[in-house]
Structures are given as structure tokens and as C-alpha cells.
């Protein structure tokens, strides 16, 4: 309930419309209350009293009321739908925008499917409730009071008697509401489980098949499926109890009216017309009272939806430019890490610990170290994808938390580990960060990233649509488009997170040459496994378990020994052996039979491909 109240602030901009729809509703209810009275007069004045004129008048009145209430009904319906649609529109906009600004740390743990369903399904249920359900509820209240008033003014004792069954009806309905909400929640989670089972089974289909685990998977699915069945049956059993019963209670009212009202007519204290009118009033009230079950249902769904929507909206977009943030227009590109520590939520160990570093503008910094040593965490702090848990990251001497984010990120070009592209044309993908870029610039960026050639190879060139509905690019091609996308930003700071891992060695060399040129005059951070990239760095950071364990130039680090030398030697051995062997093969050409001679060296050699 409190969620519904909170979400109702979205109704605020439409206060006037809400009021208008209430006024219309009130008038409509008032008009409806006349109908049984007219029928009463048809019977008492017309039939019993024998006045033909009164019959004609009543018929005309009925028709007029029908017409009038139809018109009011139309406006009321339209206005409430209009309100609902507007609220839905606002809510979706708000959610969409909010999700965009939620930090990486939120998205690391959020399930994308759920976020999407909140924007669509949950907003729908709130919308439905805000539109028709609230109005229905109000109508029910108006109508009840109106009917009570009319009935009591006609005959008090009959009013009490005939309304008796309506009391348990309302009580049952409201208890049904609380019960059904919980039951529906159980259904939802059961369906969620079925969907999880499916998702996993389909994404892991090769593994399932490879290990011949179809039966095991089917059993697991059956369990989830069974849960959907049983939870639904519980819901249904409640329905089965309440729907026929509420129906019956209104019939009971009619019988009570006939029994007791009939007696009163025979005593001469009541007219037949009044009995008919009473019955009509009861029917009039029973309909919305029965609809109340549905309303309570919708209310429950809306409350659950509101809760889920608020759960998202309540997450503070922790990483946002604060008020009065400095707009750094022309970055120099000086980066400093002061005593930086980073610990992700739900993680046992800190991912970064005691990092101190100052990088002068236009330097090339290479990060190297085992998987999970904190390299990516490190570079993610520069565009402030995460906030530090300790210490501070400074750009041009300003704490990144005090800098306008958009201005900062526009001057940082980043190629993420996984090169995600959007289902749009290649051109628009490259221009993602600078949609207004001239086509020449897009081409230049693509050329620099060695992507131009393969893009031109597509029938539609740069207009080729990629993604699920278009052309599928290979990992290497995607990576090159992502590099072009970063280059087009003409960034002051360039971050390459292991971005050459899925291109072949030849392309890598070509990109490398291009990048060498591009790195000039920018502060660049490169995460790489291959030493060829690392060697030329102004500073190499060797990372292990969240700490910088060695730093310096290639030569200095080699002299120093330690992890860097270890890695270097392992790779070097491979490379030296590789070139040795190539020479040897050349030498041996024509004398191919001597292969066994160098078997020993071959067996141990490794290369980083």
C-alpha cells in the first residue's frame, strides 16, 4: 500500500484531469441512481396508478438518462485512460533515464531481463490501476453512499435487511485481496524459476547435449513447472470460492427483498415499485462490489509492480556529477591515484589496495599482471565507472568526484574488454560518442582502426546494420569497430582494455602501428598480455592481487627481476624459439627428413600465438 501511495506522486501533474474525471464520475453515479426510481414510478404511477402519460414520460426519461450517462461514461473513460497512459509514459521515461545513470556496480549484479520487465510489465500494471481501477473504486464508494442514502430514505428496515448480505460480500472481497496478493507473488516467482531454467538450458544447450544431461534437465524443469501449477491452483481455489459466493450473496439480497418487502406490500406499507427499485439498487451495488475482487487483484498487482519499480528508482545513481561540478573542457591528461582502494560489494577481498601513482600528460602506461589482479578495476576508475572505496583519483589535479562526468568522459576514449555494438549501422556505431561527426572523420577513425577494409567489403558498406537483425561480425571485427568508436572521440585520455585479444597477429600489427601514431599526444593506458605492446610504455605497472608490485620501464623492470621478468622470460622463450625454429626450417628446406632432430625443443616451446 505504501508503495502505491508513493507511486501516486506520478499522478500529480494530472491533478486537474483526475479532479475532472471524479466530477464526471460523481455526476454519472447520481444519474444512475435515478434509474430505479423511474422504474418504481413506472410500476407505481404507471401500471398500478394507470397513468399512460407517466409511462411515456418515464420511457423518455430512461432514454434521456441513458444518453446522458453514456456521454459522461465516454468522457470519464477517456479521461481516465488518458491519465493512465500519461502516467505510464512518464514512468517509463523516468525509469529509462534512471537506469542509464545507475552505476556499473548496480548493473554488475542486476539481471537485465528483470530491468526490462519492470519498465514494461510493472509499469503496465501500475498504469492500469491508475486509470480504470482507481476510478472504479471511487465509483463504488460514491455509488454505495448514494444507494444507502436513497434506500434508507425510502424504507429503513428493508434497507437494513437487503443490505445484510452485502456486508459479508465486502468483507470476503477484502480478505481475498490480501490473500491473493501473496498467492500471486508465489506464482510470479515460480514462473521466474521456469524462465531461469529455460534460459540456462538454452544458453547451455551444447553442454547439456555434450554431457547427455537432457533427462536431468527435464527433471529440473518439471519441478519448476510443477511449482507453477501448484501455485496457480492455489490462486484458482481462492477464486473458485469467492466468485460464486459473491454472486450468491446478491441473489440472497433479492430474496430477502421479496420475502420481507413482499410482506410489507401486502401490509400496505410499501409499493411493488419500491421492491423492484430496491432490487435494482442491490444489483447496481453488487456489480461494482463483485468487480471489487478484480480491483483488489489489480491493486495487488499494481502494488507489487510499484514496489519493484520503486526498488529501481530508489537506487541512488551514486555516480553522477554533483552540483557545481567542474567542467573540465580541455583536459591536459594528468592522472593521479592517491592511496586508492576499491572493494566491490559482495566481494571478500579488495580489488585494489593502496594504489599510488602519478602519470604526466601524454604518457603511455601499460598494465600487466595475472587475471583478476585489478587491471580492469584500475582503468575503470579513471572515467569514474566506479567510485573508490578509499583514497582519490585525480584528473588534472581535480578529484574525479568533483568533475562534470559527461565532460570528463567525452574526453576519454575507452575500448572495453567486450566490444559491444548496437544493432544499428556500422557508421552510427562508430559515431556513437559523437553522433554529429562528419563522415570523413568516421572513415578516418575506421581506417586507423584497420576496420575500413572489411567494412567496405559489405554490400552496404558503412550503412550495414550489425547485430541480431543484421550482419554478424567476428570478434576481431567487432573489436576494430569498437576501437574506431573510441578514436573518433579524439580523446585526451585513451584506455585500451585488452582490446587486441581477438584479432589475428597480422591485424594486430597493423592496428599497433596506427595506435602508436594515435597514442602520441594523449595519455594512454593499455592493458595487454603481449609484451610487444607493453615494451614501449613510458611506465609499466605490474599488478598482482590489487596492488602495484612493480613499476618502471621495460629495461628497468628486467633488471629488477620479479614477476615482470618471469612473464617476460616465458614469452621471450616462446618468441626466440619461434624465430629460431623458423630459421631452422628454412635451413632444413630440401632436407625435410630431419624433423626428429629438433623435437625436444619443439615439445617445450610455447608461444603466445
Amino acid at each position, binding site marked *: 500500500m505504501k508503495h502505491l501511495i508513493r507511486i501516486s506522486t506520478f499522478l500529480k501533474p494530472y491533478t486537474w484531469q483526475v479532479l475532472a474525471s471524479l466530477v464526471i464520475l460523481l455526476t454519472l453515479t447520481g444519474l444512475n441512481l435515478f434509474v430505479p426510481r423511474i422504474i418504481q414510478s*413506472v410500476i407505481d404511477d404507471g*401500471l398500478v396508478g394507470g397513468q399512460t402519460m407517466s409511462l411515456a414520460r418515464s420511457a423518455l426519461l430512461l432514454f434521456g438518462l441513458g444518453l446522458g450517462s453514456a456521454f459522461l461514461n465516454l468522457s470519464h473513460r477517456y479521461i481516465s485512460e488518458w491519465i493512465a497512459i500519461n502516467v505510464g509514459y512518464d514512468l517509463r521515461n523516468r525509469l*529509462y*533515464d534512471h537506469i542509464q545513470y545507475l552505476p556499473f556496480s548496480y548493473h554488475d549484479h542486476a539481471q537485465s531481463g528483470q530491468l526490462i520487465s519492470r519498465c514494461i510489465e510493472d509499469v503496465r500494471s501500475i498504469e492500469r490501476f491508475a486509470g480504470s481501477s482507481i476510478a472504479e473504486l471511487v465509483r463504488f464508494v460514491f455509488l454505495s453512499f448514494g444507494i444507502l442514502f436513497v434506500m434508507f430514505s425510502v424504507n429503513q428496515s428493508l434497507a437494513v435487511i437487503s443490505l445484510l448480505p452485502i456486508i459479508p460480500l465486502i468483507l470476503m472481497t477484502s480478505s481475498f485481496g490480501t490473500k491473493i496478493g501473496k498467492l500471486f507473488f508465489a506464482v510470479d516467482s515460480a514462473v521466474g524459476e521456469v524462465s531461469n531454467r529455460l534460459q540456462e538450458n538454452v544458453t547451455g544447450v551444447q553442454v547439456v547435449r*555434450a554431457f547427455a544431461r537432457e533427462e536431468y534437465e*527435464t527433471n529440473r*524443469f518439471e519441478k519448476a513447472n510443477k511449482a507453477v501449477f501448484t501455485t496457480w491452483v492455489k490462486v484458482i481455489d481462492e477464486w473458485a470460492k469467492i466468485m460464486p459466493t459473491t454472486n450468491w450473496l446478491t441473489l440472497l439480497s433479492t430474496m430477502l427483498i421479496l420475502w420481507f418487502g*413482499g410482506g410489507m406490500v401486502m401490509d400496505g406499507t410499501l409499493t411493488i415499485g419500491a421492491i423492484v427499485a430496491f432490487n435494482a439498487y442491490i444489483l447496481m451495488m453488487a456489480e461494482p462490489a463483485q468487480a471489487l475482487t478484480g480491483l483488489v487483484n489489480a491493486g495487488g498487482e499494481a502494488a507489487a509492480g510499484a514496489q519493484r519499480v520503486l526498488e529501481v528508482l530508489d537506487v541512488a545513481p551514486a555516480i553522477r556529477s554533483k552540483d557545481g561540478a567542474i567542467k573540465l573542457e580541455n583536459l591536459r591528461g594528468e592522472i593521479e591515484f592517491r592511496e586508492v582502494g576499491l572493494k566491490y560489494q559482495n566481494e571478500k577481498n579488495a580489488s585494489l589496495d593502496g594504489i599510488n601513482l602519478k602519470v604526466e600528460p601524454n604518457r603511455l602506461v601499460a598494465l600487466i599482471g595475472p587475471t583478476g589482479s585489478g587491471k580492469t578495476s584500475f582503468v575503470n576508475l579513471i572515467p569514474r565507472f566506479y567510485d573508490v572505496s578509499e583514497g582519490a583519483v585525480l584528473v588534472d589535479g581535480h578529484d574525479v568526484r568533483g568533475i562534470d562526468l559527461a565532460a570528463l568522459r567525452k574526453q576519454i576514449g575507452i575500448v*572495453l574488454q567486450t566490444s559491444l555494438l548496437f544493432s544499428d549501422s556500422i557508421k552510427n556505431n562508430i559515431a556513437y560518442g559523437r553522433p554529429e561527426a562528419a563522415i570523413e572523420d568516421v572513415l578516418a577513425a575506421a581506417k586507423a582502426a584497420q576496420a575500413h577494409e572489411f567494412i567496405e567489403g559489405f554490400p552496404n558498406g558503412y550503412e550495414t546494420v550489425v547485430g541480431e537483425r543484421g550482419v554478424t561480425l567476428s570478434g576481431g571485427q567487432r573489436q576494430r569497430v569498437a576501437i574506431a568508436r573510441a578514436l573518433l572521440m579524439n580523446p585526451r585520455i585513451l584506455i585500451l582494455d585488452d582490446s587486441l585479444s581477438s584479432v589475428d597477429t597480422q591485424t594486430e600489427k597493423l592496428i599497433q602501428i596506427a595506435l602508436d601514431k594515435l597514442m602520441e599526444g594523449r595519455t594512454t593506458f593499455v592493458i595487454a598480455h603481449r609484451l610487444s605492446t607493453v615494451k614501449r610504455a613510458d611506465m609499466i605497472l605490474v599488478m598482482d592481487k590489487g596492488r602495484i608490485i612493480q613499476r618502471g620501464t621495460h629495461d628497468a623492470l628486467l633488471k629488477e627481476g620479479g614477476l615482470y621478468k618471469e612473464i617476460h622470460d616465458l614469452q621471450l622463450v616462446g618468441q626466440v624459439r619461434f624465430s629460431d625454429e623458423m630459421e631452422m626450417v628454412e635451413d632444413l628446406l630440401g632436407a625435410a*627428413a630431419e624433423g626428429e632432430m629438433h623435437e625436444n625443443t619443439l615439445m617445450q616451446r610455447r608461444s603466445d600465438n
Partner: protein
Amino acid sequence: MTTRISPPAFITQSEEILDKMYDPRVARGLLRFVKPYARQMSVALLFMILVTAASVSGPYFVKLAIDDGIAANDPVSLRRIVLIFLAVSIFQLGFNYLRVRIMSRVGQHVLYDVRMAMFGHLQKLSLSFYNRYSVGRVITRVINDVGTLREFITWAVLAIVRNLLGIVGTLIAMLALNLKLSMLTFAVLPFMVLATMAFRSVARKNYRKVRAAVSWTNSVLAENVNGVRVVQAFSRQERNYKTFKEYVNRYFYETSLDAARVASVYTPVVDVLGAVATALVVYVGGTAVLGESITPGVLIAFVLYVDRFFEPIRDLSRRFDTLQSTMAGGERILELLNTEVDVQDAENAKELGVIVGGVRFENVSFHYSDDPTLVLDQINLDVKAGETVALVGETGAGKTTIVKLLARFHDPTDGCVLVDGVDLRMVTQQSLRAQMGMVLQDPFLFNGTVKENILFGRLDASHEDVISAAQAVGAHDFILGLKDGYETLVEEGGATLSVGQRQLISFARALLANPRILILDEATSSVDIQTEQVIQRALARLLKGRTSFVIAHRLSTITNADRIIVIDGGNIIEQGRHEELLGSRGRYYELYKTGFQE
């Protein structure tokens, strides 16, 4: 208002949006699932008829009470009539309760069966199906489409039958009471039909647009959520928000409003027609009462019946939309269920006994059913038990197809694949794959604990077996370092683990399965050098003593292989040991020079 915005063509043309009228084929297909419950259904239908009859009798009892009881000033018969009315209503209550229970249970049973049938079928469909069908689509089929089916069965069908029964029952009651007044009421019927038809045709177009809007919004949202990191890295939030607000969500807004406009007109129109009918009945009927041709009770009952007559009509027109969206959903469900299983166990398929692991390809050719280009062309290959074979070649050369045929994910178009001399098509897939292990390039882990993921290889393995498998591949140490050790939960997409770690877990899984034949698709993406070394050692341990097919990217795997097979254009163009192939200076030599990558 007509909208200026229109969603991209792929949205409007998508199958989800297309209109679907009532289709007997689909109805028949779905009926298959209802058949097992025919008995319960007929009982429920019988109850429904009884309930309708009881309910239709209500106004008649009111008439009797007024005419024979109150107007006749006969308290005894009034009480008698009311008591009978009460009895009938209790009977109605009971049967109504039973009907709802039976019907909705049947509905849930049917849905349960449909979901099981779909899942079961999904387990049989070959991998080429999954190349065409994305995860999202499969889930939409099984969750959303079956969901619309639920609405269909529990509400639409029932409500339609109930409404139809209600209309027929009321019609009979009215005709029986008074022919002339009945005719008066029916006079408005043609207008009602016209209004309904006009409404329906406009509403259908509107709903189609709304569905397109939902689908468009969904896809835009999905992309933005999945790509949120890129969105933030490139500071695209404002622009994306503008697009969403002014186009996508706006379209949603405008189409919904159009639909609401039409819908809000319809009900009042029906109401006016109802008022016309009531007014006519009151005037003509009233005059008739005065002329003594009918009693006041008849008139009162008639006014009540008029109301009951229009309500089901209004309700039916609402249900029709549900019926329609169900038709589309039903068709999609059937389409999935009717997708042919292209790799099937032969009728007389035998269990494959314990194998030694010799593999032979005899004149094997293969092409996909929708593309006549040969992916493999007359492959002949004889691999002895225990041999390690490295498959080398460019992307698209046919390496993956060879191992897929061996695992019988596809059947060869020509020739045959034999294990220990037995044609794979002669044995059950289950018995074949139970003795075969596969480690894929992208090591897929399920939601669950690390231990459960390793156990997937052999479900009945003990905890000690799991640990020793992990130890053997060098995964034990890092697993112990995780938050909850072996009980650590692996999250969606395995975000908590690095690629190298996931690979080691999938090695442990394969090792635990202890397969005679191992298929390994090496990962291309580079991991750091220490992990690389651990993986090398794990690999050596994994390959030992088994027949192994490795799609190799790492040089060490290739050079250590017992045999290297170079594939190009679906043919084996060279095979032999590393040194032999280098010496012959052919294709392998070329590949070797450029570093063996895509």
C-alpha cells in the same frame, strides 16, 4: 490523432505483430492438449449449462413472486416461491464452485503439459535450431505465449461459452415470457452488431500498433540495458533519453491513446442501445400491462432480462481480443512443437556398450539443410583409441563440423561416422554422449555453485571426486580462494569468475565425466601467462589416455598432438606430425608462420 512516428520495419514486420484471425488449424493443434481432459471438460460444461439455467431463472422467480405472491396478496405462495428461489440459488452456487475449480484445474494441467512438451521437444532439437532461435525467443514462446494460452483457456473460452449460454438462455426466457416485448428488445440488435463490427475493425488495427509499440520499446530497452556500460562510457545518456522519450515511448503513448479513444466509445454506445431497449420495453410493455395483456411481474422480469442480455454481448467483444492474441501465440507454440527433430534415435537404436575410443570417418560429406554448399567433402579419417588429434585450419574450414558430427549434433549427408566400428546412427544419442566429453570455447557455467557445475559431468560423483578433479586440473586452489569455496554461487554469465577460471572449471567438469572420447574447442582469447600455464598443464592431464579431438589454437597443443589435421574448404589437405608438416612446407607451414589465428 495520427502518429507521425513509425517504428523500424523489422518491428512492424516481425511475426509477433502480425494479426491472426481465428484459425481452425491452430485450434485443432491446441485441442490435442485438451483432449486428455475431455471428461472433466464435459462435466464442467454440463455444470455450466445447469448454472446458466439456474441463473436465467432468477428474474422469472422475481416475476412469480410479484404476480402470484405480492400482487395476488398470497403470503404463503410468496414464501414458497422465495424458498424455491433460494434452493435453486444454492444449487447454482455449488455447481458454480465446482465448475470453476474443475475448469481452471484442467486449464493449468493443459498449460503444464504444453510447457513440458515444449521443453521436451527443445531437448531433442538439433543445434542448428538454436543457431536460428535466440534464447529470448525460446523464453517468449514458453513463458509469454503459453501465458496468453492460459488467458485463453481459463478465461476467454470459458467466458465465451458462458456468455453464449447466457445469451441463449436469456433469449429463450424472454421469448417464453412475451413474444412482442422480445421482438422490441431485439430491434436494437442490428445496431449493436453494426457498432460491434465497426469497433472491432478499428480496434484491431489499433491493437496491432500497440503491440508493435511494446515490441519496439522492449527492444530499445533491452539494448540500452545490455549496453549500459558503453552508453555511460560515451556519455550518450541525454541523447538516448531524448530518442526514447520523443520517439519510442512517444509512439507507445500515441498508439495507446488511439486505442483508448476507440475503446472508450464502444461501451457507451452499447449502453445507449441498452437504454433504448429498456425505454421501449417500459413504454410498450407498460401500455400492455394497462391493457391487461401482461402482468406487472412480466414487465419487471423483462427489464431485468434486457440488462442481462446486453452484458454478455459487451463482454464477448472484449474477449475477442484475447482470443485473437491467443491465436497468434498458439500458432507460434505449435510452430515450435512441429519443428522437425533432424537428429533422432533410430527406431532400433541400441545402447552403445563401453567403448575403447577408435573413431572413423568414412567418405563423410555434410551440408546444412538450408544451404547446399558442402561444408565437409568426402572426409576419410581413422583415429586410433587414445590418439590426440589437432584440427587446424582457417575459420569456416570445417573443423567444428567434424567434431559436431562426431558428437552427432548433426548427421552426415553422406558417408558415416563410426566409433569402435559402430555407425553412430545405430546407437542412442544418450549412450554415445555419456561416453564423450566436450569442452567448448566459451566455457558455459550454469547458475549454481561451483561444485554443482563440476558435478554436471557426473551427477553421482562424491565430493572427494569433485575435489580431486579440480585438483587434477589445477582449479582447486583458486576455488578455495573464492568467497564460499566450492559452494560459491556462479552468477549470470559467470561474472564473478575470470575466463581462465571458468575454463578450468569446465575442464574439471569434463575430467569428472571421465569420457573415452574428448572434444575440445580451445579458446582464442588470450589469458595471462600464469593462467595460460595452468591451463596447459590441465590440458595435458585432461587429454591423457583418451581419444581427443582438439580444435587447436595454442601452439603447444598443436605441436604435442599425435596427429595434426589441416582442413581447408571441407577437405583434409595435410596430416601428420608437427615436424613432418613443417618440413613439407605446405599449408601448415603457412599457417604456422602467421601464428595460427583466425
